C-alpha cells in the first residue's frame, strides 16, 4: 500500500504563499504575520491529516461486467464502502490500476456516509483480447482544502478475460448460415431430425434429450444427438496457422468469435476446432463463454491443420477468410 501526498497546483501556490509569509514574518519580525503563517501552515497540516482520515477504512471492490469484448466499451462497476463508524468520507476518487498505472477513467464519490456503501462505474475499452490484469486501486482525495492530493494504492489483482472483438461478418457468410429456428421448432429444437447417436450430457442440454436406459446402463448421463435437417449443430473450424500475419490473424479470430456468437444467437449448438484443441458443440451462455475464452487465448500454432470429426459448418482460415458449408446466393 503506497501513500503519496503531492501538492495540487493550488497547493503549490498556497505553499509558496505560506513560505513567503513565514519568511516575511521571520525577516521583518511582524508578529501577526506569524499568526497568519501559523494558520496557513496549520491548514496544510490539517489537509494532510484529514485527507489521510478520509481515505482510511475504505473498502473498494470491482463489479466486472459479464462479458468484455476487445474494442467494445464496457462498464466496470466500482463499489466503495466506508467502514468508519462515525466519519463520512468526502470527495474520493477511485482509479483502477493496470500494471501499477491508473486507467484513464476515474470514479468519483462526493460523499460516502459512515458505514455506507455506494456504487458507480466507469466506461472503458480494451483493445486486445486475452487476459487483462487489473492490479489494484488508487484512492485519492484532495479533501478538505484541495491543497494536497493524498493517494493510496491498494493491491487487488483481478484478471478479466477479454473476448475477441466481434468483427462484422460479410453478408455472404451470414446468408450461408442456418436460419434461426421457427417458433414452433423452438419448443423442441434438439429432438427433431434423425437420431445420430448419443453423447455425454453437458450443462445447458435439454434434460428431455437424456437417453435414460443407456445412461443407467453406463452409469453416466447421455443425451441423444439428432441429425437436424437444417443443421442445428455446427462446428467452426479455425485454422490458427502461424503463417498468417498478426493483423490478419486477429481479424480471423474476431470473425471466428463473431461466427460463434451469431450461430448461438440462431439457436445452434456450436463447437470449435482449432490446432491444439476442440470444443464439442453445445448450447447455452456458459458454452458460448467457453468458446469465446478459447478464442481469447488462441495463438498461432505450428503443426497439422485442424480436422473436424464432422463436416464443419464454417471454416475460418488464419488470414480471416470464412467459408461456410452451404453458401447461398444473395
Amino acid at each position, binding site marked *: 500500500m503506497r501513500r503519496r501526498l503531492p501538492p495540487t497546483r493550488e497547493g503549490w501556490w498556497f505553499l509558496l504563499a505560506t513560505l513567503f509569509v513565514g519568511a516575511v514574518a521571520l525577516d*521583518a519580525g511582524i508578529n501577526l504575520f506569524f499568526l497568519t503563517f501559523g494558520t496557513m501552515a496549520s491548514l496544510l497540516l*490539517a489537509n494532510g491529516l484529514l485527507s489521510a482520515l478520509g481515505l482510511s477504512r475504505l473498502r473498494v471492490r470491482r463489479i466486472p461486467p459479464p462479458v468484455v469484448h476487445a474494442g467494445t466499451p464496457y*462498464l466496470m462497476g466500482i463499489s466503495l464502502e466506508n467502514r468508519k463508524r462515525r466519519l463520512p468520507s468526502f470527495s474520493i476518487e477511485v482509479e483502477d490500476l493496470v500494471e501499477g498505472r491508473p486507467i484513464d477513467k476515474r470514479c468519483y464519490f*462526493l460523499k460516502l456516509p459512515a458505514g455506507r456503501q455506494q456504487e458507480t462505474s466507469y*466506461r472503458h475499452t480494451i483493445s486486445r483480447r486475452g487476459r487483462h*490484469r487489473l492490479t489494484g486501486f488508487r484512492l485519492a482525495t484532495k479533501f478538505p482544502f484541495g491543497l494536497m492530493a493524498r493517494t493510496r494504492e491498494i493491491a487487488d489483482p483481478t484478471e478479466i478475460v477479454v473476448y475477441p472483438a466481434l468483427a462484422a461478418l460479410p453478408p455472404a457468410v451470414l446468408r450461408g448460415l442456418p436460419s434461426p429456428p421457427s417458433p414452433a421448432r423452438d419448443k423442441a429444437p434438439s429432438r427433431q431430425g434423425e437420431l445420430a447417436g448419443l453423447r455425454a450430457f453437458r450443462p445447458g442440454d435439454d434434460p428431455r434429450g437424456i437417453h435414460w436406459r443407456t445412461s443407467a446402463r453406463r452409469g453416466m448421463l447421455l443425451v441423444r444427438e439428432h441429425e437436424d435437417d437444417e443443421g442445428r449443430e455446427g462446428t467452426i473450424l479455425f485454422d490458427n496457422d502461424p503463417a498468417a500475419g498478426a493483423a490478419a490473424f486477429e481479424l480471423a479470430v474476431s470473425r471466428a468469435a463473431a461466427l460463434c456468437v451469431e450461430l448461438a444467437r440462431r439457436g445452434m449448438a456450436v463447437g470449435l476446432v482449432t490446432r491444439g484443441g476442440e470444443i464439442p458443440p453445445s448450447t447455452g451462455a456458459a458454452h458460448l463463454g467457453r468458446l469465446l475464452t478459447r478464442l481469447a487465448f488462441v495463438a498461432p500454432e505450428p503443426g497439422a491443420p485442424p480436422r473436424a470429426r464432422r463436416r464443419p459448418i464454417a471454416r475460418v482460415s488464419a488470414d480471416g477468410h470464412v467459408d461456410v458449408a452451404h453458401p447461398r446466393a444473395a
Partner: protein
Amino acid sequence: MRFQAAHKLVTYLLVLSALAGLGTTHALAPASAIAFLAVTGLSFWADGPRWTAALDRAAGAARVATGALLVAIVWRISRRMPEADLTAAFDLVLALLGYKLLYRRNHRDYAHIYALSFLLVVVASTITATFLFVAAFAVYVVLATWALILFHLRREMEENYLVRHSAQAPSQKVGIGRILGSRRVVGRAFFAATFAVAAAVFVGALGVFAFVPRLGAGFVLGARAQTSVIGLADEVALGRYGTAGSGRETVVLRATLPRLAALPDDAARRDAAERLYFRGAVYDAYQGGRWLRSRRPELRTVLEESNGRAFIRELGERGALDPLAGTDRQEIEAVGIPTTVLFAADRPVAIELPSRRLGAAGTVGVVPRWSGEAALRIGGDGQNGFGDGFVTLANAHYIAYSDIGDPQRVPAPPRDGLRAAEPRSVHASYSLDPRARLDDLALPDGLTGMRELAVRLGSGRDAAGKIAAVVDWLRAGHAYTTRPPARPPGVDPVDDFLFSQPVGHCEFFASAAVLLLRAAGVPARYVTGFRGGDWNPIGGYVAVRGARAHAWAEAFVDGSGWTRVDATPPADAAAAPGRLAETSDALDFFWSRWIVGYDLGRQRDLAHHAWRELGHFGPSTPTGQFLVVLTAAGLLVALGLGLRRAGRRRVRDVPIVASGGLGPPAAPRADGAIDRLYRRTLGRLERLGLPRRPNETPHEYAARLRVGGTFGADDAFDRLTGRYAAARFGGQEPPDEAVAALGRSVQELLAQRPSAG
C-alpha cells in the same frame, strides 16, 4: 441546509469577518465601508435567475464603472506617493471584492473572493493595534476553514466527473444545479466537525506563533518602519501642535514598573502613577516660535554598551561604578506612538532591548541622539547613529532604567514645579561641558523684555532659587488653557505669552521657563513627553493616554545635574478611566505584549518561567520521577507505534507478482513514445481550449472533436488515439519510427488549428 446556500452564507460571513478585521485598523474609511456593505447586501439577495440575468445584461456597464473606480483610486494613491495611502489601497481591494461578489457565478469567482478577503486580513494584521483584531481573525479562520472545504467540494462538483453511466449510451455529466441544491451534502454534523478542524487550525496557528523563534528583523526586507508623529518630531512649532498621537484618549504608552506594583494598594499606585513623567524628545535651540535641535557634537548623547544594555550619559557626566543601583526597571510598550526617541520615566540611565540581549539576529539597536535622548534604529550599533535617517518602530518594546525616586514621597503636581533632585547614585559627578553650557544658554536676538524680566527674577539667587522664582512668577500671572488665543503675526509667541496674552498650554509655559532661565544664566532645555498615567489594576501597569502629552523644562543645577522644571499650573485632573475602559485597555495590553510585541525576549522569559516551574518537580521529587517515567513511556510508545507502522508499510509494499497463465503481453512503458506523444498532444489541445473532459475515454474525446468539426475522420489525431489505446490497453506498443511519423502528422494538424474550434 442546501449546499449552495451554505456555501454562499459562509462566503459572505467570511468577507464580513475580513471587513471587521480591517475595521480594527482605523484605516478603513467609513464611507467605503458603508458602500461596500451596500454592495454586499445587494449581491447577497440579488442572485436569483432574474437578478442574475439583469446583472449580466449590465455587466458591461458594471465593468466600466468598476474600472473607472479603480483608475480613480489608483490616481489617488499615486498622488500620495511615496507615502503609502492605505485607505485608498483598501478601497481598491474592496471595489474589486464588491465586483466579484456581484458577479460570482462559479468556483473561480469564489476563489477570487477568498484571495481578496485574505489580502485584506493580511494587510490588516500588519497595521492593527487592538486585540479586537484577534477576535475577527479567529472568526475568519473558522469561516475560512468552512469556506475552503465547501469551495473545494463545489469545485469538484463543477469540474470533475459526477457522471451517470449507462451501458447503452455515452456517459452523461450530472447537472450541477441538482447537486448544489442537495440538502444531503452538508448538515449540522458537517459544520460541527469542520468547526473542530477550524479550532485545531487556530490552535496550531497559536502554537506556531508561540514557538517559532523570533530570529531577526531586516535580513532582506528591512524592519517595519513608519513615519514620525506630530509633536514628537524633530521640530516643535509653538501653538501648532498640542498633542501627540492620533487621539487624546488613545493609550500611547504602557509601562510596567515593579516598584509601583509593590505599593500596598491601588489608591497608592494610582497616586504614584499620576506623579510620573515620561521623558521623550529634548530641544535645545529656539528660533521664532520653534524649538529645534542644534545637533552640535557637544550635545551628543554618550552611549556605552555593557551586558546588552546601553548606558546613557551626557558629555561631562561620569558614570558610577554601579550605574543601575537605585534605579527602577520599567518595561515599556510604545503602542500608540511610533517612537523615534525612547520614552522612559524621568531621565533613563540605561536602555535594554530584550531580543538583542540574546544576541539574536535582530538588527534594531539603541543609538544616541542629543541631550540625553536615545532612539531605536535599524542596524543601530550605538556608534553610527548620526544623521536624520531614523526610522520609527511602532509597538516598540524595551526596558528602561531610571531613578524615579520614592513614588510615595515625590510630591504630586502642581507642587512639583521644581523637582529638587538630590545627586543621584547613577552618576558619580555632575558637570556640564563648557560648550554644551553655551548651547543651553543660547537665546535668540531681541526678546528684550524677557531678558529684563529674567534678570529681575534671578537677581541675588542661586540656580535653584532662580528656578523657583521663574516657576512662581509664571504660575502667578499666567493661566493654563488647551485653547490658546491666536498670536499676532510677527510677534514672538513666547514674548506674547509672557507680556500680552498670558494664557497658553504647557508648550508656552515650558518655553517661557526655558528662555527665562537661560536669560537668568541657568542652562535649560525644552523637553516633551507625558505627565502622569492611569494605573490599570487589571493589567498591573501604567497606561499613558495621548491627552497626557506634556512639555516641561530641564535646568542644569551644579551639583544636582539636570533637573526637571515644570512651570505649567495644574489643569483639571483627567477623568479616571472606567472599569470597562480599563478592561478593554488591559486586553489591548495583553494583545500588545503577548501578540504584537511577542519577541525573542518574551519567548526566552516564557521558557525561563516554564523551566523554573518545572524545577519544582525536580528528578529527586516523586512528581518529578513520575514525569520522567511518563515522558519515557510516551517516547517508547511513540517509537513502537512508528516502528510498527513502518513494518506494516514494508509488508504491504511487496509488489504484486503476476499469476500464471497466458497473461497479457508486456504493458506499455509508462514513458513509452506513444504515451508521451499522446499526453503532449493533450496538453497542446488543452492550451488551444479543447481539453479532454474527465469523463471521456480517449475514443470518446476523439469522437467529440470529430463531431465538433475540429478534426476530420481518420486524421492524425484519430490515428494517434487508436495507437495510444492499442498500446495503453492492448499492449501493442508501436515502433518508435511510427510514433515519430505520427508525431509529425499531429504537429502539422495542430499547426493548422491555432485556436479552439
